[in-house]
C-alpha cells in the first residue's frame, strides 16, 4: 500500500535545502494541520439528535448484560429463554399445538388466571408475523428420544414455553384464538426442524445446572434405594442453581442488591452456594436493574417498578380494610369459635393482672376483644393458614417451628417479607407450576387450587382469598408472626394412623 501523503501543494525548496528535506518538512506540517483539525472535531459536542438515547429499561438491560457477561452468571443460571419462530401453517406444528392445548386444558379448572401476566396470556402476534405465517414462541428446548419409536432412533425437540403463546388460529372450535400458558410443552420432530421452524435462538445459560442435575441423578443410581434422594429430574432440579427468568418480577430490588454483594444461604435443598463475587456496588445495581428492566419490558401488564416497589401490606390501613371485610364475612358460629380459641390467652394475661380491680380487668378484656375484632382477626386467621402442617409448614420453617419434611425443605418464610415482591408471591402461591420450567413440576405444590373446596376452618374464604391471605402474611411476616395470638400459637400435629 503506498504511503498516504497529506501535503497536496507544490513544495517550495528554500536555499540550502535538499528537495527531499523540503518535502518531508511540508508533509509534517500538513499532517499536523490534519491532526489539529481532527482533534478540534473531537472537542466539538455532537448534536443530540445523532446520539442514541435508549429508554431506561433498555439501557438497564444493556448495562446489566455487560455485568452478567463479566461474572459469567449464565454459566450456572438460565438467564434468558430461547426464541423459536414456528411455521404456523405446518401440519406438524398445528398437530403439536392442538395436542399441547388438549393437554394443558386440564389445568385450567384448578388455575387462578392472571390475564395481565405473560405466563397466562401471550401477546398478540404482530401483523408482520401473521403475514409471514410465523408464531414466535419463547421457551427452553431439550432433545430426547421419541417414545413412539421402537427403534429408539427418532428424536423429539421438546419446547417448554416460558411465556404464554397466543394462537390466533382456532384451536377450540371458535375464532377467538387461544393461549397456551407457560409451561406448556410442544413436541417437534428433531430431524425436521428446518421444516417446522423459521428460526431458532436457544436459551442463554444454565448449562452447568443441567449437567449437575444429570450428575446427581447418575450418582444416586449407584446407591441403595433407601439412600437415593435424586431419583428424577423433579427431585434433583431444586438442588442446582435456579433459573433467573422472572427474577426481577420475583425479588425486591433492595434485597437483591444486598444479596449480590453478600450472598446468604436461601434454599436448604441447594447443593451449591452462590459465591461472593466481590462485585462493586455499581455492578450489583446494574444487575438489579437488569432483571427488573427485562421483566418490565417483556411483561408490561404487571406494572413492575424499580428500583423502588410498593408493599401495601406494610401499611396499617391495608390490614384494617382486610380485617373489616373479613369480619363482615364471618358467620356468628365462626366468630364464637374464634373467641373461644383465644379465651385461654386472655385469661393468662388477666392472671398476670390479678392485683387489678375486677371491674378494670373486665374493662381490659373488653378492650382486647374490641381490638381483636377491629384489627387482628384477619391477620391471625391468615397466619393459621401459614403455620399449618398441611400446607406451608409441611416444607418451610415458620418462625421457630421446624417443617415436617426436613429432607425437602424450602426457603425460610421469614425471609419472604424482605425478599419477595407481593405480586409474584401471590401468583406463585396460586399456581407455582406457571413459573417452573426446568423440570415437570415445581417442588412447591398448588395448595389452593381453584377447583378444590377450601378448608374454611382456619380461614374463611375461597381459594384465591386464601392465596392472598397467605401472601399478605408473608409480606409482613415479622410483625404478623410477633402478634401475641400468633407468637403463642402451636399448630395441631395430626394424630398417627390412617383412617
Amino acid at each position, binding site marked *: 500500500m503506498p504511503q498516504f501523503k497529506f501535503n497536496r501543494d507544490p513544495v517550495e525548496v528554500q536555499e540550502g535545502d535538499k528537495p527531499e528535506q523540503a518535502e518531508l518538512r511540508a508533509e509534517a506540517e500538513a499532517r499536523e494541520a490534519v491532526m489539529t483539525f481532527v482533534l478540534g472535531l473531537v472537542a466539538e459536542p455532537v448534536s443530540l439528535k445523532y446520539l442514541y438515547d435508549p429508554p431506561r429499561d433498555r439501557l438497564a438491560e444493556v448495562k446489566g448484560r455487560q455485568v452478567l457477561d463479566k461474572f459469567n452468571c449464565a454459566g450456572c443460571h438460565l438467564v434468558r429463554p430461547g426464541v423459536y419462530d414456528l411455521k404456523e401453517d405446518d401440519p406438524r406444528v398445528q398437530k*403439536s399445538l392442538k*395436542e*399441547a392445548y388438549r*393437554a*394443558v*386444558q*386440564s*389445568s385450567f379448572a*384448578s388455575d387462578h388466571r392472571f390475564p395481565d401476566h405473560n405466563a397466562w396470556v401471550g401477546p398478540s402476534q404482530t401483523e408482520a408475523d401473521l403475514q409471514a405465517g410465523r408464531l414466535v414462541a419463547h421457551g427452553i428446548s431439550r432433545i430426547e428420544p421419541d*417414545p*413412539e419409536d*421402537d427403534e*429408539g432412533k427418532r428424536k423429539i425437540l*421438546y419446547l*417448554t414455553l416460558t411465556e404464554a403463546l397466543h394462537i390466533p388460529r382456532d384451536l377450540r372450535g371458535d375464532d377467538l384464538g387461544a393461549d397456551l400458558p407457560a409451561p*406448556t*410443552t*410442544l*413436541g417437534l420432530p428433531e430431524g425436521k426442524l428446518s421444516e417446522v421452524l423459521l428460526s431458532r435462538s436457544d436459551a442463554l445459560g444454565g448449562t452447568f445446572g443441567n449437567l449437575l442435575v444429570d450428575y446427581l441423578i447418575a450418582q444416586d443410581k449407584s446407591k*441403595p*434405594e*433407601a*439412600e437415593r*434422594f435424586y*431419583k*428424577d429430574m*423433579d*427431585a434433583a432440579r431444586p438442588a442446582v442453581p435456579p433459573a433467573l427468568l422472572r427474577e426481577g418480577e420475583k425479588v425486591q430490588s433492595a434485597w437483591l442488591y444486598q444479596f449480590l454483594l453478600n450472598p446468604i444461604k436461601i434454599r436448604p435443598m441447594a447443593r451449591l452456594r452462590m459465591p461472593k463475587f466481590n462485585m462493586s456496588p455499581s455492578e450489583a445495581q446494574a444487575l438489579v436493574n437488569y432483571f427488573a428492566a427485562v421483566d418490565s419490558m417483556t411483561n408490561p401488564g404487571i406494572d413492575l417498578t424499580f428500583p423502588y416497589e410498593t408493599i401495601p401490606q406494610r401499611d396499617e390501613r391495608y390490614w384494617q380494610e382486610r380485617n373489616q371485610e373479613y369480619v363482615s364475612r364471618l358467620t356468628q358460629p365462626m366468630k364464637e369459635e374464634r373467641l373461644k380459641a383465644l379465651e385461654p390467652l386472655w385469661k393468662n394475661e388477666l392472671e398476670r393482672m390479678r392485683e387489678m380491680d375486677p371491674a378494670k380487668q373486665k374493662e381490659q378484656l373488653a378492650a382486647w376483644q374490641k381490638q381483636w375484632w377491629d384489627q387482628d382477626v384477619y391477620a391471625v386467621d391468615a397466619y393459621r393458614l401459614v403455620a399449618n*402442617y*398441611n*400446607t406451608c409448614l*409441611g*416444607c418451610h420453617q415458620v418462625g421457630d417451628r*421446624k*417443617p*415436617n*419434611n*426436613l*429432607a*425437602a425443605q424450602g426457603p425460610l418464610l421469614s425471609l419472604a417479607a424482605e425478599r419477595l415482591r407481593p405480586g409474584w408471591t401471590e401468583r406463585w402461591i396460586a399456581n*407455582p*407450576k406457571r413459573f417452573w420450567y426446568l423440570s*415437570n*413440576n*415445581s*417442588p*412447591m*405444590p*398448588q*395448595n389452593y*387450587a381453584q377447583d*378444590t373446596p377450601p*378448608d374454611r376452618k382456619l380461614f374463611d374464604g375461597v381459594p384465591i382469598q386464601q392465596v392472598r391471605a397467605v401472601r399478605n402474611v408473608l409480606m409482613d411476616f415479622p410483625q404478623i408472626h410477633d402478634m401475641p395470638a400468633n407468637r403463642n400459637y402451636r399448630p395441631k*400435629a*395430626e*394424630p*398417627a*394412623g*390412617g*383412617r
Partner: protein
Amino acid sequence: MMRTVYAMAVLGSLLLAQANPVAAEDWGKALKGQVIWDGGEVPKPMPINVQGNMDGPKCLAAAKGKLVYETWVVNPKNKGVRWTFVWLAPEEAGAKLPIHPDLQKVPDKPEVMDQPCCMFEPHALGLRQGQELLVKNSANFAHNTRYNGHPAKNPGRSVLIPAGQELAIKELVADRFPVSVKCDLHPWMSAWVRVFDHPYFAVTDADGKFEIKNVPAGRYRLMVWHETGFLGGAEGRKGMPITIEKDQVTDVGALKMKPLDK
C-alpha cells in the same frame, strides 16, 4: 338393478369398515401368564428410612411398622414379580386393536389410588383413556400428589390433598410413556400409572400372574413393563410376538424378568 344393489352393498360394507375399522369376529377367551424373577437371589423387602421426616413415626404407625419399598416385590415362594404392566399391542405400529363388544364402553367407575400409610395403594395401576383416576388421602395428614407423564401429552400437576380429601384426575390420555405419581412431603412415596386406549392390559398380582379376558384372536405383540424398564431391556420396547387362539385361553407361561443391572 343388480349392479345398483351390488354397488350399494360395497358402499355399505365400506362405510361399516370405516365406522369400525378394527372389527374382529374372533375372540380368545383370555390371555394369561406369569412374570418370574430371573435375577438370582430374590430381593428382600427393603425398609424405608423415614428419619428426617416429621410424619415418619405416624407413617410407620399407620403401616404397622412395615414400610418397605415396592420397586421389586417378588414372591419368595414362586418368584412371581408384582406390579408389572402387561398389555397387548397391534402387530403393526400405529394400528388399533379390535375391542370386544362387551369391553367397548370405558368404565364409569374410577380407578382408585389411596395413600393411607404413606404408600400409594396400589403401587401400579392401569387405566382406560377417559376413565377417572381418583387419588384419595385417607390418612390423617396431608399428602402432596405430583403426577406427570409425557411432557407434551400428560404434563400433570402437583396438588396438595389434605387429610380425608381426594383428587379426581380425568385428563390422562393413552400414551406409551408411563405416568409417575409421587408425594413431595414423603419423598419415598412412588407409584406408576399407565393409560391405554383399549382394555387389554393388566398388572401382575402378588404371584406375578396376570390374566386379560376377551382378547382378540390373531397375531399381536405382548408388552411387559416394570418400573425399572421393559422385559428384555431396550429391545423389549418392541414387545414379543404372540398368537392368540380363537375361543381358547392362551397361556404365555413364565416370562423371565431380569433386572437391567444383573
